[in-house]
């Protein structure tokens, strides 16, 4: 199996007259921490949106795990193993932190509709597994204190962590973090940087 997880070739996307992304190419190896840096308006988030299939590139293509990503619908991206966080936090405001993370497990929690109506044993088992997995993420990011709090009442720094936790709940092969430290102070930023260095190793070894 190839070591290249994600590759982009000549990606360009045009919105009307604006060329947001111009012939971008890169490769991301398995186990690598790959960073896109650039000034505001450079198109970094747009590239992420292209990978998450929110936008479709005008030219160029993206391959993930050797397969083309360009025809995949947006909701199938998580199932392939790509998770992302959003620059302006897009959490489910009227749900608790726990519920947000449980929703993150959606791709792994496939039980049939009719079985869910009856809440059969298999559905129950799936729920227990989901909860176990979510608790692992909560432990890892130390969110126990906020487990049952509604997201709408949380401070900004905690929301950033919940956003990350939710992405981790999907057990991704590739994690896209969009400006993960924006809005955080020096201490929180260095915590997060330390976190990235270690959890790429520890999290990857768990899965």
């Amino acid at each position, binding site marked *: 199996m190839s070591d290249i997880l994600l590759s982009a070739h000549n990606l360009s996307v045009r919105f009307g007259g604006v060329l947001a992304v111009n012939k971008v190419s890169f490769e991301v190896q398995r186990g690598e921490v790959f960073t896109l840096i650039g000034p505001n308006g450079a198109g970094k*988030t747009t590239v992420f949106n292209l990978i998450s299939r*929110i936008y479709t590139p005008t030219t160029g293509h993206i391959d993930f795990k050797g397969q083309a990503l360009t025809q995949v619908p947006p909701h199938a991206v998580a199932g392939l193993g790509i998770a992302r966080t959003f*620059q*302006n936090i*897009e959490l489910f405001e009227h749900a608790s932190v726990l519920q947000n993370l449980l929703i993150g497990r959606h791709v792994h929690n496939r039980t049939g509709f009719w079985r869910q109506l009856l809440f059969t044993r298999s559905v129950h088992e799936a729920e227990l597994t989901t909860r176990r997995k979510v608790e692992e993420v909560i432990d890892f990011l130390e969110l126990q204190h906020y487990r049952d709090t509604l997201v709408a009442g949380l401070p900004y720094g905690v929301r950033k962590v919940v956003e990350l936790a939710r992405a981790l709940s999907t057990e991704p092969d590739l994690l896209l973090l969009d400006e993960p430290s924006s809005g955080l102070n020096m201490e929180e930023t260095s915590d997060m940087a330390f976190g990235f260095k270690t959890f790429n190793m520890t999290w990857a070894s768990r899965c």
Partner: protein
Amino acid sequence: MQELQVIFSGIAQGCIYGLIALGFVLIYKATETVSFAQGELMMLGAFSGLACVSWLGLPYWLSIPAAMLAMALLGWMTERVVIRPVLGQPAFSIVMLTIGIGYVARGLITMIPDIGTETLAFPVPYKDTVFNVGGVVLGATQVVVVLATAALSLLLYLVFRYSRVGIAMQAASQNQLAAYYMGIPVKRLNGMVWALAAAVAAVAGLLLAPITFVHANMGFIGLKAFPAAVVGGFGSLPGAIVGGVIIGVVEALAGFWLPEGFKDIAAYIVVLLMLVLKPNGLFGEKLRKKV
């Protein structure tokens, strides 16, 4: 020849829909809330016009501004007392609130002794005049509707496009907190918008009254104004009128050509087609969230 007749009455009816739609597009543009009370405000406008003419004995040309003023005051007060406290709640709740306002208005009118439950005629000086244009008979009531609508919509369009007030209203609708920071008196503006929308509704009522007579259930016509607003595009003032006219004409022709029953649902079929083909309406703007 009959087609032209039918089309013209469709245009006139459509202008009424357009005026009501204008009212809630105004409110939507300024506060991004949808008001289901416009139909009932129109009904109240018709009643207040009737009150001015029949019981206060004012001459017709004085009753119009009097009724408009009364309704504007009512609209301003409604905004102040009921709408202002709830801004910031989800759109659905505010819609339910305006439905409640409509119910209250309808209920209160039926309580006015002797009048509330009756259907009353509205005396206008031009009631019996007709124009004969090349074989097509145009009632003056209908002609007045069309002309008044055109004049009013032009005026409002200019206000919103070019005046500071108009631009301030648009800013407040997109991000209220930011508008506050910019020094825009959001609350005062909201009050003004509701007053304006109520006055427009009053005009619609006064124009409709000679045609359908004045009664408590007049407001239900307002339901057809929603398809008008959707067809035109919800954020667009000229769109509301154009949408209204389209709905009016389609409805009239449906009544003329198609079997019974199609006339009542023609407006709704048009709106569904519109949502399939061009969801943002003819003049609406497509806004997309950036993440």
